[in-house]
């Protein structure tokens, strides 16, 4: 694969994009999981699909838009969806989770309409649903790299504020942090990362890369920084192993990446259990 990586641009795009996503998705994922927003990532990925399907339909229908990269409309839909979720969460204060099925089904519904309007982008669509090793363009890679830079800038400014907000929202508000604005910015950055990740892992599996490595990390970590470090290690491992096996076995990388991260999760759960039993006996 190393030789192929040197020779084929498409493979370089996929591997480098994958490695970036393997860092930023679990990095934001830690905040998503501890703030109990895991399902929101899922809802947003379905909204992203609506943007992708809409874009594919537009390119098919209007020849002027034939070269439009679907990632742009995907980003627009995802960011728009994140703001809508926030509106709905505030509207249904006591049933915040209601926003998730509303946005999720809305996203899928719109996607279904665009998909049936334009018959014939099946292969393309499959690569967006489950990821692809071969379909990542230079342009996609550039967009993903730009989003990674935005994530790092955002976190370097708001890391300590996000920690307070995640740990104890009431305390954050009482100490006068602009909780609402920080949360809104956070949701927008999450939407961007979802749009970036879907090229590699696919829309249906994006949220898994944000949650599974974190789930494994939380079994091991005592502190927050540790949780972030382990999440990134597990995320990166999943992406690399997943991409390599997808390349050799000719499978959708979304599938191999997610299965790898589930295997990692199971190993961690088992190892922790054995360790606890072993040390209990030792005492």
């Amino acid at each position, binding site marked *: 694969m190393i030789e192929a990586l040197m020779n084929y641009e498409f493979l370089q795009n996929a591997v480098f994009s994958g490695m970036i996503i393997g860092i930023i998705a679990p990095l934001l994922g830690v905040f998503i999981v501890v703030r109990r927003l895991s399902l929101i990532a899922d809802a947003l990925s379905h909204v992203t699909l609506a943007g992708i399907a809409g874009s594919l339909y537009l390119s098919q229908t209007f020849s002027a838009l034939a070269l439009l990269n679907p990632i742009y409309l995907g980003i627009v839909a995802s960011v728009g969806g994140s703001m809508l979720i926030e509106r709905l969460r505030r509207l249904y204060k006591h049933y915040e989770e209601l926003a998730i099925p509303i946005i999720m089904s809305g996203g899928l519904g719109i996607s279904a309409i665009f998909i049936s309007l334009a018959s014939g982008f099946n292969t393309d669509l499959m690569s967006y649903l489950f990821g692809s090793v071969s379909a990542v363009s230079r342009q996609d890679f550039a967009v993903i790299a730009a989003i990674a830079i935005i994530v790092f800038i955002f976190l370097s400014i708001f890391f*300590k*504020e996000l920690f307070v907000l*995640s740990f104890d929202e*009431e305390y954050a508000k*009482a100490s006068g942090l602009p909780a609402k604005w920080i949360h809104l910015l956070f949701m927008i950055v999450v939407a961007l990362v979802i749009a970036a990740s879907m090229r590699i892992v696919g829309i249906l599996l994006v949220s898994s890369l944000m949650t599974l490595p974190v789930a494994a990390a*939380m079994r091991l970590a*005592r*502190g927050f920084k540790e949780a972030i470090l382990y999440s990134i290690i597990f995320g990166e491992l999943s992406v690399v192993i997943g991409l390599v096996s997808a390349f050799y076995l000719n499978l959708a990388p979304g599938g191999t990446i997610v299965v790898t991260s589930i295997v990692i999760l199971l190993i961690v759960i088992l190892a922790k259990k054995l360790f606890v039993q072993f040390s209990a006996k030792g005492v």
Partner: protein
Amino acid sequence: MTKTIIELKNVSFQYDYTQVLKNISFRVEEGDFLALLGPNGSGKSTLLKLILGLLKPMSGEIELFGKSAGNFKNREMIGYVSQKSNAFNSGFPATVQEVVKSGLTKKTGLLKRLPKDREERISSALKAVGMEQFAKRNIGQLSGGQQQRVFIARALVAEPKLLILDEPTVGIDHENVQAFYDMLAKLNEEQNITMILVTHDVDTVSNRISHVACLNQTIHFHGYKNDFDAISQDELDAWYGHAVRKIH
């Protein structure tokens, strides 16, 4: 002359159509240790939220450190410790040290790095609450009383002038409650931190406080603890509409 830390003038508040607080006026001076007593639904938590700036009064005025609450920017001067039960989810991956460090966030401000002496500040805050040996432990592994001490340390690390505690001993074993109040009294005396404490443990807290305020929609009594002791039981019952235990 002592400094006025909090002053409320004719403050009223209502949720939708329910009047919660009516014409509340009182003053808290520097160094006071005030116990705020009142039955459930008397508006204690609402009053704290007004002081913390989480809610705005419908009418009346609140002054904090001599400034109108609306314009008061130095929120880090006020430390807040809520009931443990609704404060955080216990599976959160954070060490005691990380939790205490988060108390410096507001004081430091956006775009700025935490101060260089943060490690010393964190360890001295943990020392003040007797938790220094737990710095590296996961917060979820501690007992309720220990967690509550960590939250006090989180408030102390920003060097507050006023500490507001909303039923901090809910969910703490009875034998640890005494030690917890001893620690608060020590902070009040040694660091001259003004305290407002909402509590039901009237018996336990009675020999540590300086002032008492009785709240049920409106302030029925506010004054020195000794004057409060002189109030007859019948009078108290009339304020609250039912029998309450008195401090002895």
